């Protein structure tokens, strides 16, 4: 049993296994780039599965749409981490020993080494050794005397290479751990806020339109802060290409919450608000048409609800603005008189044969093409529904019917058969914000930088050895032989070696 364990461990931590695991990791990461991934695009994933029948379902069953959370991807990188640890422990111990050990003893036959040189000189072995140690400044050097009177110098340089290499591998482990910790404690929420002085406070998950908690986050301990969106400005080039988006916001966090101080900030793409360790991003923007309904009894209701862009270039948008009739308490009655204004909004309208579209994303000539629906909106049923749509099944079952269809310019209105008037009153802009929280990400960055430093050092520095043997020759002269060995890659050592060897040969230093 212990033998089995030992062999498994040895196998797992061998260089060859590490290499195979590396290639497996590369291979396993690839499908995530080619297949839609649930975490990135839920809708595309579902469409893909539906479009591909049993094949789609099979892929789903083997977690091909959740590659980076899949069992097989996780196993590979866990095994690799174990392999790295198993590799690093003995290497660190060895490194520690090597740091304290003397450079190794001079080999018998220096002529066998990849770099070597021999010469005779009139100087004594002691003089040669002295000259050699003088030349080898910056190297770790040991002198020895052999039987037979030969004097030797062993020298070694480039320990930093191994230092860099160990730093690199340890930092990579650190990075993996920091990423895992981040997965536990992070959260990310998205919310749409009207850019008319509306506020959003990071108080609980219910405030968000969507919220993604880390594995150990229950949403009760969100960092308290509030954001107020005063206005939103989009600059466009004449071509319709966006030039810059800016949300003018105020925020309150930390101590400011007690004193009620608001601090201003210009929120832009690439310039998130960073406060109390959380980040607030400007993700997107759109329009919220304002509709005012005057009911037959004279009561007036105004709603400003965001509509969602269906065309990112022209910001043609769709949506549904819903009204409850005022003063109707009988639920049965209410469910016959609820109203929805639904259809398309264009910031710069062009109408072709009665069909509305948009020619420019900026707000120059807004118009809507709407259906007014009356009946049961289904909002009392307790089932959640999209704020951008009406429930089509209620239309199909005849409980919700169309009572008008019209194109409206700003300020125009529709009169319904019962005397209700629906007016297109104005437009607000909205911004979509993302709040992100991940205290571990600075550790990820720190380890990434360490990896880079370690890598740079280990790839630029060469570990190399050099030996000199000065033996008394038969004729009273001294035979000097020099040998050199670079431990990883011989390239580039030749010149340095040649310089030292010829300096020794010529007796200058």
């Amino acid at each position, binding site marked *: 049993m212990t033998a089995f364990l030992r062999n498994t461990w040895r196998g797992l931590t061998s260089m060859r296994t590490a290499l195979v695991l590396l290639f497996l990791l590369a291979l396993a990461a690839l499908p995530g780039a080619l297949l839609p991934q649930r975490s990135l695009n839920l809708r595309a994933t579902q469409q893909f599965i539906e479009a591909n029948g049993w094949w789609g379902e099979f892929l789903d069953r083997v977690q091909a749409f959740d590659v980076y959370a899949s069992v097989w991807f996780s196993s590979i990188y866990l095994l690799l981490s174990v392999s790295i640890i198993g590799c690093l422990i003995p290497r660190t111990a060895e490194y520690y020993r090597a740091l304290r050990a003397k450079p190794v003893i001079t080999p018998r036959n220096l002529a066998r080494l990849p770099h070597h040189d021999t010469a005779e000189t009139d100087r004594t072995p002691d003089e040669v050794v002295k000259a050699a140690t003088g030349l080898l400044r910056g190297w770790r050097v040991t002198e020895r005397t052999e039987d037979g009177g030969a004097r030797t110098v062993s020298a070694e340089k480039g320990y930093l290479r191994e230092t860099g290499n160990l730093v690199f591998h340890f930092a990579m482990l650190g990075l993996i751990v920091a990423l895992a910790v981040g997965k536990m404690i992070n959260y990310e929420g998205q919310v749409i806020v009207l850019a008319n002085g509306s506020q959003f406070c990071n108080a609980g998950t219910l405030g968000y339109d969507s919220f993604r908690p880390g594995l150990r986050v229950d949403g009760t301990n969100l960092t308290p802060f509030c954001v107020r969106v005063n206005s939103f400005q989009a600059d466009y080039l004449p071509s319709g290409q*966006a030039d810059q988006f800016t949300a003018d916001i105020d925020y309150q966090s930390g101590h400011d919450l007690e004193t009620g101080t608001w601090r201003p900030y210009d929120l832009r793409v690439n310039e998130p608000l960073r406060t109390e360790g959380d980040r607030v991003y400007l993700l997107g923007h759109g329009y919220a048409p304002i509709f005012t309904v005057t009911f037959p009894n004279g009561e007036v209701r105004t709603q400003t609800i965001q509509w969602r862009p269906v065309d990112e270039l022209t910001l043609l948008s769709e949506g549904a603005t819903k009204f409850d009739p005022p003063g109707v308490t009988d639920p049965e009655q209410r469910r016959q008189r609820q109203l929805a204004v639904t259809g398309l909004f264009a910031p710069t309208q062009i109408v072709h044969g009665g069909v509305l579209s948009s020619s420019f994303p900026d707000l120059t000539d807004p118009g809507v093409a709407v259906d007014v629906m009356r009946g049961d909106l289904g909002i009392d049923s307790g089932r959640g529904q999209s704020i951008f749509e009406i429930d089509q099944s209620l239309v199909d079952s005849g409980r919700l019917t169309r009572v008008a269809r019209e194109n409206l310019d700003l300020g125009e209105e529709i009169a319904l058969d019962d005397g209700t008037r629906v007016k297109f009153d104005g437009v607000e802009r909205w911004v979509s914000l993302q709040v992100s929280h991940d205290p571990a990400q600075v550790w990820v960055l720190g380890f990434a930088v360490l990896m880079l430093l370690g890598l740079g050092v280990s790839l630029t520095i060469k570990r190399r050895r050099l030996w000199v043997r000065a033996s008394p020759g038969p004729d009273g002269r001294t035979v000097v032989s020099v040998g050199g060995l670079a431990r990883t890659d011989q390239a580039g050592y030749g010149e340095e070696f040649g310089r030292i060897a010829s300096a020794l040969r010529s007796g200058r230093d």
Partner: protein
Amino acid sequence: MPIDQNLAEYSDWAYAAAALIYFLALIGYAVEGAFGRARKHAEARELVAAGSAAPPPEVRIGVIEDEPRRSRPERFGRMAVALTVLGALLHLASLVLRGFATGRAPWGNMYEYGAATMLVAVVGWLVLMRRFRENNVRRLGAFVMTPVVILMFLGFTVLYAEAAPVQPALKSYWLVIHVIAAASSSGLLLIPGVVSLLYLARVKHDRSPNRFGARLAPADTLDRLAYQTTIFAFPIYTFGIIAGAIWAESAWGRPWGWDPKETVAFVAWVVYAGYLHSRATAGWRGTRAAVVNTVGFVVILFNTFFINFVVSGMHSYA
């Protein structure tokens, strides 16, 4: 900032001229590679270096020595180098002009990115030819210039984009840093990608000699060239990925999100890490390492072309 159409046009002209000149250079290299004598491996000059008391060259009085005559193919080779330098200068001019025309860093779309990458590849190759001049690698120029010319041609015909400003998401100095790192490392990695293929051909020749392999540089030279270029480019690539993550953190709200482009960059990075490891693993040195290196570059190409055009992700701004 408005686009200066004149400058943009000059930039296009310079680009086209550079591509054409590279093509001529390619022919020059090819002539030398095909017809030049495969010079004998230059003698190791190990001990001749500064500080040595090398004996003065023998001077014979009264004899005028001929300048060693250069063979015709060799002259083609030298001309090819001169053309390459000229092409690179025009290429650089094209980038600079585009930068001035648009008033921003000239690598905001695929066309510009490709142009910058190829410039790095060409300059990298010029430097390597100098560094390895004793190893007779100039004759390999045709193999390096072939993908360069093809990619530049594709850049102009398929990827071409009018000079224009970039979208808000690209307005960041991290764009400059990240893209410089990505373009220079990708451009440099083209060289070992090609050279590793030549290495494989040469090793095949060493086992059973053939005409093609005989005209290549010795296997150990090719291996060394590939290795040294890779270890120079790999940290830059690593830095590029880190810079990309930093930028993504401020633009998209997370440093890493397994966006297709990020994913394939990660895959290429792991493949190159595999290359470095394979050189330290018994049984993996040599041939297998060379295959891994080439695969690494294929993954980078795949990332630039396939992922940008076929798969949609956050990076598909081009």
